[in-house]
């Protein structure tokens, strides 16, 4: 059976002809539900802040200042959104094949760890921007391996990828801890007793160039361009490419997909590796773009936040970007709110949790609307 014929067959079998009927009510719900959930959660957040006795306008002013009060804060918020976007894109990529990669945190952690190792040992002397490109690629590759392990287990042994990616995360985090604890690995030399368990700073050449080098106050770096490129590639592959169609076919029905000539095993491995690779890239960008040295908790929940962004987007690449911007700006705002207005940043965690729960709980209604 020829390839194109197989694909036509597959698309016929799964009704994936590209035309969808009655998208409008479902589409408006798809946008309306997250917007409403966010609004409800933020209102509850405001009510909680009000209950502490802090004047609301002070808290909001501090929040706004942290999100977008200066070129620096806007840049920092967007840099946060870049990492979240990459993890979220990775999630929807694997999810197209009906694979749920919940291990973004671990993939991000190994990505950052290997990017640091590469930047410290060998990459600095490379010419032509390779000094930062090589650590970036090595970080992505490490994440791809970490995600790929779950893919291999799934394809080879039918191991549930939710469980394996979760477990792999809890293997990865102690690995990073180990790497900054051990002097044989990445820990900086002990100069005195108070030397913290962290890596030395990476060389200047290995850091991501700033987007606006003339404007010293903006921390925006070329990670933004990497994220935009990843966004376009993922969106095109998922929407237009035959690869996206194959992923969807495997996700719908592995046996039927195989009958249509699709090698589902290798496809599962590739999907998980790409997904993990995007997570690893996010980790590498966090180290090379902003943090510049590795600590045991450098990933600080970005992988889990990115997973949530991916979940909330319902498979849409644009949705990932919007969710990432929301979470990125929320995180930035909450930090300033805690420092200036003395409202615990944990309020934002409450809002995030509520957003996730409300959207997940209303999924069934959206689904019913779509089926109608």
């Amino acid at each position, binding site marked *: 059976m020829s390839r194109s014929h197989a694909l036509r067959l597959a698309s016929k079998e799964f009704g994936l002809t590209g035309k969808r009927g009655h998208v409008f009510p479902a589409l408006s719900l798809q946008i309306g539900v997250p917007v409403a959930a966010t609004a409800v959660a933020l209102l509850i957040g405001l009510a909680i802040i009000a209950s502490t006795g802090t004047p609301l306008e002070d808290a909001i002013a501090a929040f706004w200042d942290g999100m977008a009060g200066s070129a620096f804060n806007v840049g920092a918020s967007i840099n946060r959104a870049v990492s979240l976007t990459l993890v979220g894109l990775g999630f929807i990529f694997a999810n197209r094949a009906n694979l*749920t990669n919940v291990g973004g945190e671990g993939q991000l952690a190994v990505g950052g760890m290997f990017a640091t190792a590469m930047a410290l040992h060998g990459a600095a002397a490379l010419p032509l921007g390779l000094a930062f490109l090589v650590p970036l690629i090595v970080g992505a590759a490490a994440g791809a391996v970490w995600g790929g392990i779950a893919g291999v287990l799934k394809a080879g042994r039918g191991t549930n990828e939710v469980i394996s990616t979760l477990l792999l995360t*809890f293997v990865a985090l*102690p*690995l990073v801890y180990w790497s900054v604890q051990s002097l044989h690995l990445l820990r900086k030399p002990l100069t005195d007793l108070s030397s913290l368990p962290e890596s030395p700073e990476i060389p200047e050449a290995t850091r991501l160039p700033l987007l606006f080098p003339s404007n010293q106050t903006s921390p925006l770096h070329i990670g933004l361009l990497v994220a935009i490129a990843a966004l376009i590639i993922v969106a095109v592959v998922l929407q237009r490419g035959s690869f996206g169609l194959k992923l969807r076919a495997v996700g719908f029905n592995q046996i039927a997909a195989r009958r249509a000539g699709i090698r589902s095993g290798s496809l599962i491995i590739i999907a998980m590796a790409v997904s993990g690779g995007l997570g690893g890239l996010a980790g590498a960008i966090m180290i090379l773009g902003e943090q510049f040295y590795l600590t045991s908790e450098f990933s600080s929940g970005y992988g*889990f936040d990115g997973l949530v962004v991916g979940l909330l987007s319902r498979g849409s690449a644009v949705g990932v970007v919007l969710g990432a911007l929301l979470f990125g700006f929320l995180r930035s705002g909450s930090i300033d709110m805690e420092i200036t207005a003395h409202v615990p940043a944990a309020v934002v965690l409450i809002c995030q949790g509520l957003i996730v729960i409300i959207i*997940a709980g209303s999924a069934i209604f959206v689904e019913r609307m779509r089926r109608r």
Partner: protein
Amino acid sequence: MTEAQLAFFLGSGLRLATPIIFAGTGEMLSERAGVLNLSLDGMMLIAAFTAALTSWATGSPAIGLLVAIAVSLAVAYVQAVLSVTLQANQLVVGIGFNILALGATTFLYREIFGPLSRDTIPGFAQLNFPWLAAIPVIGPALTQQTALAYVGLLLVAVTWLTLNFTSFGLSVRAVGEDPRAADEAGINVIKVRYLAVLYAGALAGLGGAFMSVGDSNTFTEGMTRGAGYLAITAVIFGGWDPWRTLAACLLFGFATALQFLIPAMNLDIPVSLLLMLPYVLALLAIAGVAGRSRQPAALTLPFERAS
């Protein structure tokens, strides 16, 4: 290794295992019914905070424990509405609850106790029977425990009996393997799953309360440190069997306790290797490399009656 070191190691291993024995045993039953509570960590954290707060306010750790179980049951009920009735993605809901629990407990802790509180909270006393302490090594290890450690072991036995020798247990297993067939046999799938999630909630509440009023006598932000995930891992490594889950919990507890022993014995083993050991073992187990571990067929799959 001296005798005192060994006794301390055994005692702290059992103490570290106790919260995950509670949470893991409840979670095992819930997963056998087909519902995965990724929110276990959040339930434990909320229970730990509630127990600490109530015990601090009333002076009674027992009241703290009861209130913690009640609050944890309420959280479990909401979780059941979402993952059973509304058929929401169990992973998403679980992660959402964990974020919410971390946010809510941290916020309330700072508002009520202040960010740098070092208050000790009234907790359960350790059992100190003279005849027990007289036994070498084991005696001193056991006298480090509160009564809750024994309650945990008892609950494993109760859960095993329930699962294997009662009609409710039969329903749980049927619902977790093939809900459609169970429904046709007249079992109320939804009700069984609600009860299973509530059971997991109650035990997670006990486990969380143990951490604050049974062990450390204090509350710190995010104090569960992933104990809920460790309990879920123990269920996986234990192959969804009560006794093997208990064995996994004990193994994980002792592995964690080794990190205190290793520096004392001047051994050069990285602590992080011990921290990742449970997860590596569980990974090998579900991959079928070490032991066998088959999950309930309908785990995380929502049930809807065909109309």
